[in-house]
C-alpha cells in the first residue's frame, strides 16, 4: 500500500514519469484529467451550491486534514476568498525528503487543478508562487461580476 502520508512523493514521481513519457503536455493533460474527476464532487459541487463560501468549505477540510500552516479569509459579501499558505505540507514534505528531487513544476498543479474548476464558474483565481522554495504561497479567489476588479493571472516565477 502507498499510505496517504506518502502520496506527495508518489505524486511528484508521477509527474516526472509522465514528463519522461510524453513531455510537459502529458503532465498538463493529467492535471486536467485529475481536476475534472477529482474535484467534481468536492470543490465544484461546493462552489455551485454555496458560491464563494464553497471555497472556504473545501479548503477548510482539505487544509486541516493536510495539517497545513495557513490563514484563510472569506469576505462573502465582497466575494473574496484568500489563502495565505505559511508552510505548504505537500511542498514542505518534498523539501524535507532530501533524498528525493521534487518535480520542477510541482506547485503548478494547484494552479491548473483549481483554476480549471473555478474560472468556468465565474471566479478569478490568482496565485503567488514566488516563494515556493520556502513552501509558501498565496491564493486570492474573487467572484467575477459588474464592478469587480479582475486580478492578475498567477505569477509563474520560482515554481
Amino acid at each position: 500500500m502507498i499510505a496517504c502520508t506518502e502520496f506527495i512523493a508518489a505524486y511528484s514521481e508521477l509527474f516526472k514519469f509522465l514528463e519522461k513519457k510524453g513531455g510537459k503536455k502529458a503532465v498538463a493533460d493529467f492535471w486536467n484529467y485529475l481536476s475534472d474527476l477529482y474535484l467534481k464532487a468536492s470543490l465544484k459541487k461546493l462552489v455551485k451550491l454555496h458560491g464563494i463560501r464553497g471555497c472556504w468549505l473545501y479548503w477548510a477540510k482539505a487544509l486541516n486534514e493536510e495539517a497545513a500552516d495557513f490563514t484563510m479569509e472569506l469576505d462573502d459579501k465582497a466575494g473574496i476568498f484568500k489563502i495565505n499558505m505559511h508552510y505548504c505540507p505537500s511542498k514542505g514534505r518534498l523539501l524535507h525528503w532530501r533524498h528525493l528531487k521534487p518535480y520542477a513544476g510541482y506547485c503548478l498543479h494547484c494552479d491548473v487543478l483549481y483554476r480549471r474548476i473555478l474560472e468556468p464558474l465565474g471566479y478569478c483565481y490568482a496565485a503567488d508562487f514566488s516563494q515556493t522554495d520556502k513552501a509558501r504561497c498565496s491564493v486570492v479567489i474573487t467572484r467575477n461580476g459588474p464592478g469587480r476588479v479582475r486580478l492578475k493571472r498567477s505569477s509563474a516565477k520560482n515554481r
Partner: protein
Amino acid sequence: MTRKAADNKYLHKDFHCALNLGLEYVRKHFGDDAVRDYLRQYARSFHAPLIRALRRRGLVALKEYFRNIYAEEGAPVRINCSRDELRLETDYSPAVRHIRQKGFAVSPLHGATEFAVHAAICEDTPFAFELARYDRKIGRSVQRFYRRAP
C-alpha cells in the same frame, strides 16, 4: 481561520483517490506495464532509505515501516517477522476502502501498489517478495518477504 501544522494530524485520505486516478491515467494512456514501471520508479526513489535499512538491519526495518503506516491509516495488520521471513496479513486495504467509500472505481492495477512497490524494495537486497493472496475487491492480502536462497 488560522491553523498551525501542529494543530492537526496529517491524514488526508482523499489522496488515495488521487493516486488511484493517477494509476488509471497511466494505464489508459500508456498501458499496464507503464503502471508497474512508474511504481517501480517511485519505490526505488522514495524508499531508498528503507531499502538501505533493509540491507543493513534486515526484515525488522520493514516490520517497523509497515507497523507505522498501518497505524497512521488506522487499519489493522498482522505481522510475523523472523530473521528470514516477514509475513504481513491485512483484512482490507485502507486505500481501497476509502476509494470505494468516495464512489470511485478502484483501478484494476491498484494491487500493483503492493506487489510492484514491494518487489522493487527488495531489488538488490538479500530478500524477495511474494504476494501470496490479494482480494481486489477490498484489498485484503497476504504478503511475504523472505530471504533468497544462497
